[in-house]
């Protein structure tokens, strides 16, 4: 192993373990003994032990799990109000609140102290993200890994070794996915070289448009004639009794028409050239709704060279469906990366919110999610070419995922689309303006240059994948397997015994009739389920804290910043022995951060640190928040990541996350925030007007929306989030089985009045006196993160329905005071108070980074490291990058 020159090695391994900083003692202050003595011990003391539980011998200093669990029992009994029993004397509210507060904090401290890993990192399996990225790096295959168990847990990171489990089901999953990735890679390799390109001219849809409209007209008149005959039949006097009887169960409208066969004289639909299906006939009957819309379509300019995106109505008996579904990627095109280009422009009539398209695969009229949203900045007279990338997965080849689509924004919700159509038709007699004109759509396979061949495939050089070729010689196979394994094991060659067994497995497969290609695939899949691939090993039999080898350090670095294995350049630096040189390590860190793959760090770290998964917990009511649709939500989520990316790139301070005079947004989000002059899909820094509520996490739509249930803002969720993520003062986890405050649902109260309930009982007040005031300070933002000055509530009636008579509207009153801290009169003042607590924020961020990077929880023994990172960064103006540098340069990062 190379001798490493960095400073820390001067400290011996023994010194590393010597004198760890002592954890603070988790001790409950003595003053609380009085409460136990006067309220608990008569039943749970030395003499009497009701429920076999005594409190008189509980140690006030908690040093082991057993006593922690006994105290937890005390806490639970008090929290639930179970103890002291109702008929007994109750402690004074203030006394009980303080007792609960301190006991809760003591238990949180005890849990942290007892779970301190003292620097030991348990063997880390590749988590689900890393596994996917690793196979992508190795083979160029993009897999759908959703069938593997998710490794994320609320409140933790998916990089923590102790929490990454493995089971036989999962091993089977790995084997299947490895085979799939190899198939994918083989297919890409056999298809490599040839350029594939297809252009779809939009004007070709015109004939189909006319034809389906023509059919719709025919069907409409046939359906109308059938209905007329049907109505004549039910009007016959001799049918009166029967019809009256049928109406009792089936009603008079469509329900009755379904019963036509029972009514003498009602004609068979087929006689009118209709299908024998009343549902379809009903659809045909409504088709005349679209006649003016069609006529206006056909009068539009530009139909000879392009087409307009229309609203989809296929459910309504109409197939004038110009949502432009692409013809699809031809069946013989291989999986891999494709470029999609759309030449498109908006019409002069298009309102700003309709200048967006959604792109996706496998379209159905309703419910199909899209993959990306794109803003259209070109015009019909001066179109633009939108370009984006699409990865075709091999798994979906057999399914319908070759069919791509673009459609106008917001058409995924069918009812909303139909409602909008009808509303516009009511207003203008036609329907929504045609907003987007498309010239053509192009799909192109990005040719893979030879040097971009993934390392795992390059390792197989010399082995033919042609089904007709003979199998490789043993020598060829041995060499290829050695190269492949070295790549898969992140630089470590396979052991000879291991190689011999793999060669044997390959031979066996051939013997059993597998083709050479299948035999190779299966053998490599075995290699990819080896523990040497699935675990990032840092061997050390003696459990000592030793410096990492250069290859191990390279892996730690690349998995931290890319969630992927080292690239050849990083491996080369490691091989040269220079990686642990602080300057070299710093420049490699810079290089990795500048690479596009560092987006994985942004997503992996930020979405877990800030608990962004909550954004998907609730659907937003489209009626109340029409603008906060799936597109805006996706952009709002991206804003959080893009902002942090901006801080890293521009060496800007992380305290900009508390307050800043700019935002990092794209066109869609800028318009959501009411900022003008920002267009296009690219996120960029945009200056804010003075006194803007935006700027910093507290003003971000994603963060505010997470503190809601899709309907109403949730001050408790928001306040707790701020304490946890910004102020480094996490409240203890909420006790289970606390009823939502729905017992107040029938009362007409403001949000603040409602939350007053938390102050009624000591067990609630002990945490909520800290949480709720911050939530009140954010009440100027509605559930979807828009500024508001008033709010209203409609109480529910006994049946659980909103009662319009019981409605209350009030002006938002954000004034409150931080617990044991200063008062504020507005959101802006509160934001300033929070922004002033830079150190606390930096400490919280550091702990999260430490856990994410090192793969173990940040314990009390990490305090010195944490302090040194905060100090280092604070001297450099809290620049985001410096946190990463300080951490990567630390001894802990470079030590097993």
């Amino acid at each position: 192993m190379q001798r490493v020159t960095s400073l820390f090695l001067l400290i011996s391994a023994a010194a590393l373990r010597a004198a760890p900083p002592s954890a603070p003692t988790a001790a409950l202050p003595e003053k609380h003994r009085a409460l136990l003595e006067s309220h608990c011990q008569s039943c749970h003391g030395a003499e009497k032990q009701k429920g076999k539980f005594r409190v008189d011998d509980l140690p006030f200093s908690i040093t082991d799990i057993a006593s922690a669990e006994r105290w937890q029992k005390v806490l639970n009994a008090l929290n639930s109000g179970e103890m002291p029993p109702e008929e007994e004397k109750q402690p004074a509210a203030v006394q009980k609140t303080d007792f609960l507060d301190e006991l809760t904090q003591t238990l949180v401290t005890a849990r942290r102290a007892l779970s301190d890993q003292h620097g030991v990192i348990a063997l880390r399996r590749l988590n689900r993200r890393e596994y996917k990225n690793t196979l992508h790096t190795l083979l160029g295959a993009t897999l759908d890994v959703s069938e593997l168990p998710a490794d994320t847990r609320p409140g933790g990171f998916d990089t923590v070794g102790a929490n990454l489990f493995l089971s036989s089901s999962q091993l089977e999953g790995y084997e299947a996915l490895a085979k799939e990735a190899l198939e994918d890679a083989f297919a890409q390799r056999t298809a490599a070289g040839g350029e594939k390109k297809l252009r779809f001219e939009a004007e070709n849809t015109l004939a189909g448009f006319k034809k389906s409209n023509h059919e719709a007209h025919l069907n409409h008149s046939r359906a109308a004639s059938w209905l007329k005959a049907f109505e004549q039949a039910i009007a016959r006097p001799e049918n009166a009794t029967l019809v009256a009887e049928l109406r009792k169960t089936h009603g008079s409208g469509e329900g009755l028409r379904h019963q036509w066969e029972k009514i003498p004289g009602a004609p068979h639909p087929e006689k009118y050239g209709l299908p024998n299906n009343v549902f379809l006939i009903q659809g045909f009957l409504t088709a005349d709704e679209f006649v003016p819309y069609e006529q206006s379509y056909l009068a539009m300019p530009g139909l000879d060279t392009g087409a307009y995106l229309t609203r989809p109505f296929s459910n309504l008996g109409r197939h004038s469906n110009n949502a432009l579904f692409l013809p699809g990627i031809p069946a013989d095109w291989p999986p891999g990366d494709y470029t999609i280009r759309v030449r498109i422009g908006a019409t002069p009539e298009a309102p700003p919110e309709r200048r967006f398209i959604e792109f996706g695969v496998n379209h159905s009229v309703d419910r199909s999610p899209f993959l990306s949203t794109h803003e259209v900045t070109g015009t019909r007279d001066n179109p633009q070419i939108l370009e984006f990338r699409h990865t075709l997965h091999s798994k979906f080849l057999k399914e319908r995922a070759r069919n791509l689509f673009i459609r106008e924004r917001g058409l995924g919700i069918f009812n909303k689309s139909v409602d909008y159509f009808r509303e516009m038709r009511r207003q203008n007699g036609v329907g929504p303006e045609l907003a987007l004109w498309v010239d053509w759509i192009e799909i192109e396979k990005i040719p893979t240059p030879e040097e971009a061949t993934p390392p795992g495939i390059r390792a197989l050089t010399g082995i033919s994948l042609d089904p007709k070729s003979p199998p490789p010689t043993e020598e060829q196979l041995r060499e290829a397997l050695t190269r492949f394994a070295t790549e898969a094991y992140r630089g470590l060659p396979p052991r000879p015994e291991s190689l011999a067994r793999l060669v044997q497995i390959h031979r066996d497969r051939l013997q059993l009739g597998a083709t050479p290609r299948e035999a190779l695939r299966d053998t490599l899949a075995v290699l990819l389920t080896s523990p040497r691939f699935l675990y990032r090993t840092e061997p050390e039999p003696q459990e000592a804290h030793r410096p990492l080898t250069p290859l191990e350090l390279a892996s730690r670095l690349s998995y931290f910043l890319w969630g992927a294995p080292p690239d050849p350049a990083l491996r080369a630096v490691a091989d040269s022995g220079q990686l642990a040189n602080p300057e070299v390590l710093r420049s490699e860190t810079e290089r990795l951060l500048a690479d596009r793959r560092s987006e994985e760090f942004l997503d992996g770290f930020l979405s877990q640190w800030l608990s962004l998964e909550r954004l998907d917990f609730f659907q937003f009511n489209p009626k109340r928040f029409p603008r906060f649709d799936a597109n805006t939500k996706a952009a709002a989520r991206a804003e959080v990541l893009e902002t942090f990316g901006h801080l890293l790139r521009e060496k800007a301070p992380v305290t900009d996350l508390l307050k800043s005079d700019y935002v990092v947004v794209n066109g869609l989000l800028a318009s959501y925030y009411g900022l003008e002059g920002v267009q296009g899909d690219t996120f960029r820094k945009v200056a804010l007007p003075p006194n803007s509520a935006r700027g910093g996490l507290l003003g971000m739509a994603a963060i505010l929306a997470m503190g809601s249930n899709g309907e109403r803002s949730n001050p408790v969720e928001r306040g707790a989030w701020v304490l946890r993520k910004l102020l480094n003062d996490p409240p203890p986890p909420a006790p289970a089985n606390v009823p939502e405050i729905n017992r107040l649902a029938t009362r007409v109260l403001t949000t603040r009045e409602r939350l007053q309930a938390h102050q009624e009982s000591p067990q609630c007040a002990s945490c909520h006196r800290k949480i709720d005031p911050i939530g009140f300070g954010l009440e100027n933002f509605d559930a979807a993160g828009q500024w508001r000055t008033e709010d209203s509530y409609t109480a529910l009636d006994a049946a659980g329905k909103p009662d319009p008579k019981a409605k209350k509207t009030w002006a938002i009153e954000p004034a409150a005071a931080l617990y044991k801290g200063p008062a504020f009169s507005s959101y802006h003042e509160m934001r300033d108070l929070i922004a002033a607590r830079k150190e606390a924020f930096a400490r919280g961020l550091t702990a999260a980074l430490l856990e994410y990077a090192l793969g173990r929880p940040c314990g009390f023994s990490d305090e010195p490291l944490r302090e040194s990172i905060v100090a280092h960064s604070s001297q450099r103006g809290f620049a985001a990058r410096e946190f990463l540098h300080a951490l990567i340069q630390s001894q802990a990062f470079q030590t097993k």
Partner: protein
Amino acid sequence: MHNALPRRRFLQTSTALIALPFLESLGFRRFASATTAPVPHPKRLLFIGFGWGVTEESWYPKQSEKGPGYTLSAGLAPLERHKAEFSIVQGLANRYTTNGHYGSTFWLTGANEFGEPGQSFHNGISVDQIAAAHLGKDVRFDSLCLDCGAAASKSGHGPGLSLSWDSRGKPIGGPTHPVEAFHRLFAKDSTPLDQQKAMFAQRRSILDHAMEEARDLQRTLGKTDNAKLDEYFQGIRDMETRLSRDEKWLGIPRPEAPLHEPQPGLAGYEEIKLMYDIMVAALQTDSTRVLTYRLPVSSLLTSLNVTMDSHTMSHYHQPRAEALEVSQKRDLSQSELLAHLLDQLNAAKQPDGSSLLDHTTVVYGSNIRTGHSLDNCPTLIAGRGAGFQLGHNLVLPKDTPLCNAWLTLLRGSGVEVERHGDSTGILPALLA
């Protein structure tokens, strides 16, 4: 529906010395010789979990109406025709479960998520797997753990690959769609026996290789790392155990399917119905005696033309009023489907004239009651397999351990174990 015992199967029994599916043979013997003491029917267990809980206001019968004379609640109305065949049990809870989004993770285990210091997650064996170890010795699959694929993560089940967790608290996966379940149970393998044997040998050598790789690595690692690597060893050993079991059944064809091969692409209501039919078929052919199934609650809603997502629905107390309607619609559909399952179990007659439901216990419930509430876990127990009191509204003291109910179920099904999870004893009140 029923196929007569194939002659081939008898032939194979005598030569292959393998304990064969013996349900029908037993019944046959019972008739053939009245003098021999009848061998009891094997016990079967079905566990069905539905993640997000129920609408508490309309699903539970009134607690004041204890016993057999209770009025069926609106949410259970579709089960009216089976009222005498099931009981509702109220008051049960898992004391350690604290996560309001984990409706299935600890439901059958009762484990403490934070029971292992230094780990963010810990689980124990689920009750079905204890039963499987005892009841599943003589059948092709000791258990079959069915799941619902991508819908699972949106259906309030929490972490896991099915309802089932193995003896080390690791998740067990299984078929995620009726088509897959059908193939697992009834697929015919036309490969010649010799070749099948060779394939098994090859599979074994692959597992041996994985074992060797892990041993190699083990020598270079310290204690903490090896404790983690142990999961790999266990995983491989579990695969070997399964392989040995499959090997014992080599050459014994899978039974004829008592239903048609399902169409792919079904989702939600029809998918659940079909999965229920397959579960009954699995019992009928004695392919397994223990099944678990996590219901695709989210795609059930989609198939009912509901566009609201299932989590939003589960908080019907808070958001908009239509969430309550959706929640109740969900309860009704689930009850309808369960009624269908009980119909099928009743209809599956055994050679002695009894029905499958006479020998089966169906457990239907969730760890979540409603919203984030984890007490009075909804529990419905049907079938005469474990000697339970049926037709009652059984109201137990608040926070009676769910694991006590599971222990009672195990004992009633002839599985003699001391305890399960945090059980403190059996619940005589549940027994007839």
